[in-house]
């Protein structure tokens, strides 16, 4: 049974990666939100599991916070935001869907290749999930870059943060709790600022299609 825990962690990490790929595949913005929600739950699962495995109480608190803030609060705010600015579909992503999926696959390969030396020397039993976390980060970056709706970009960014939280859980069993709390506060403020700006964009341009934002050149 002991051997199963790292495998379960890696399984959870795969689920996080899977959720990160969904925005590249779907065009429906509410589906992005659902994907983000499930990703946060999978992340909380991994975090709690790591906490159980390594006997670190703090990680339970972190996992609970992930569920409460990322899995619930952010999702509610995202739904509200989406209802208010009325974005339903990602009509023309910058890159078409099969291509962006292939790019995602390439990014995963890159993540594995780049983390290979680090994984070989790492000693934590969950090191097998490190490449997955890096892959989540890279894929989410691509999501931010290739989405044209503001909400799509925000969700890409939130998924990027999930990837980093995953990395910190599986690579180093989390960061100290004080720092972790600082991060949550930071994420919350960051999200609120983004929300304010999305409203500003909505007010100024009457749309949140970022395609319209091309006045500044050179």
């Amino acid at each position, binding site marked *: 049974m002991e051997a199963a825990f790292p495998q379960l962690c890696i399984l959870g990490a795969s689920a996080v990666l899977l959720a990160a790929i969904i925005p590249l595949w779907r065009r429906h913005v509410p589906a992005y939100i659902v994907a983000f929600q499930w990703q946060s739950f999978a992340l909380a699962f991994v975090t709690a599991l790591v906490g159980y495995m390594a006997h*670190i109480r*703090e990680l339970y608190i972190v996992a609970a916070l992930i569920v409460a803030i990322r899995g619930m609060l952010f999702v509610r705010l995202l739904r509200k935001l989406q209802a208010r600015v009325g974005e339903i579909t990602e009509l023309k992503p910058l890159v078409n869907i099969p291509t962006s999926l292939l790019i995602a696959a390439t990014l995963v390969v890159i993540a594995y290749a*780049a*983390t290979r*030396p*680090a994984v*070989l*020397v*790492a*000693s*934590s039993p969950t090191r097998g999930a490190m490449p997955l976390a*890096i892959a989540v*980060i890279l894929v989410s*970056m691509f999501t*931010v870059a290739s989405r044209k709706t*503001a909400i799509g*970009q925000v969700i890409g*960014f939130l998924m*990027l*943060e999930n*990837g*980093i939280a995953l*990395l*910190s859980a599986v*690579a*180093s*069993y*989390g*960061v*100290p*709790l*004080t*720092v972790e709390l*600082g*991060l949550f506060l*930071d994420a919350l*403020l*960051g999200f609120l*600022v*983004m929300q*304010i*700006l999305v409203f*500003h*964009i909505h007010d*100024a*341009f009457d749309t949140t299609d*970022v395609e319209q*934002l091309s*006045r*500044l050149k*050179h």
Partner: protein
Amino acid sequence: MILVILLIGSPLAAAAVAVLARPYRRALGVVTAVLSTASLGAALFAWARVLREGTFTAASGGFRFDPLAVLLTVCVAFVSALAAWMSPLIGSREEYTDAQLRMLGILVNVFVAGMLVAVTVNNLAIMWVAIESTTMASALLVAIPRTKASVEASWKYLLIGAVGIALAFAGTVLSYVDVRQQLGPVPSALHWDAVVAAAPSMHPQVLRLAFVFILVGYGTKAGIAPMHTWLPDAHSEAPASISALMSGVLLAVSTYAVMRWKAVVDVALGGALYSNRLLLTFGFLSLLVAAFSLVVQRSYKRMLAYSSVEHSGLIWLGLGLGPAGTFAAMLHVANHAIGKSMLFLLAGRILQRYGTTDLRRVSGLLTAMPATAVLFAAGLFALIGAPPFGLFVSEIRLVAAGFATGRTLLTIGVLALLVVAFVGMLRALNHMLFGPVPDEVTVGEARASEVWPALVCIGLLVALGLGVPAPLHALLVAVAEGR
């Protein structure tokens, strides 16, 4: 402790005043200015103390003042005081409503406090949090004019900045893997001195990966190409005093974070070759992109912004050239902070008068606003590295360090690009200064009181160009030697 309260508490207090004061009175802008001057005083005091006693800590080890931190602290405090005295909070500026001024008053102080925390705090993760908070505050500041262009610039900046800075955190987490194994999961495990002490036994393989993340992450905030795309938009659309802070010191604060990590990585890898190569590559690329963008610029504010990319690149190049290069780079940080913030503040005045940032529609500046024009021209000459200004000295030192470390080809490339930038900016200046004054522009300086801070800056730049004063020299030597 009192030092920290005075240094960081002052801007926070000013922010609190701006929140609480109802109704918002414009005189409150003076409060910000006075408090920022107090903060500058604390920074200068820290400078004196670090020269006297060497590195010291405050608030039971939470804050750490070593020569590098003090240098950046002084730069930040100076530019924030300058921006406060020249900001729209003081005097009557019609373009902002009271609500906008209140937001400006709150956010600019939070922004400054964030930068001051970033450069003085000992904990590498808190440093990250502070830099991240500057992204949010300054992104909102960019959006304050609420024009389409400013909202767009703000969104780009926030998104690219947030993603970049998140990568830097990924790097921080990766390097924490090793630290945690040695020091245990205590908050002080991310204290910089503890990390440096633990560095010799860290895994080079992990740190190589982590450093790439950190470079790209903080490099995004430092305006390093190819992650610089947000910078020209944000720096040119923000209110002038914010542009001054962002260009003058925020870029340097991000570079400061890179320097902290470079010190750790160099110890862990047993040599600076790896980090130097990366820094030189990124630095040269930024210089290349910026130099050619400068030539084609049509807006003087964007021109200044690209010049910031150029100088950020120069600073990174200097950091990659060993101790002599680091000395030059740090001198350059100080020079650039003074010169660039002054120019942005003057550009704000030009924009106010001419109502446009388009170079083609600004002419006859010398007739319209003689004092501003002369100061602007002097500042621009300083920026392109002409004597007798400070940037000339630091660039010469940087080039000398390049030749001394045997990177001849690279240094010749740098010189060539500097010439390209020189030509591009001179052409723009020529057009702005001379020619007829457009009909709708009124002629004559507004108030002498608005010119004196710029005069102080020019004076400082000339002083730095004639010779590096002893206290600064001692500080820079200490930084270059990594003490």
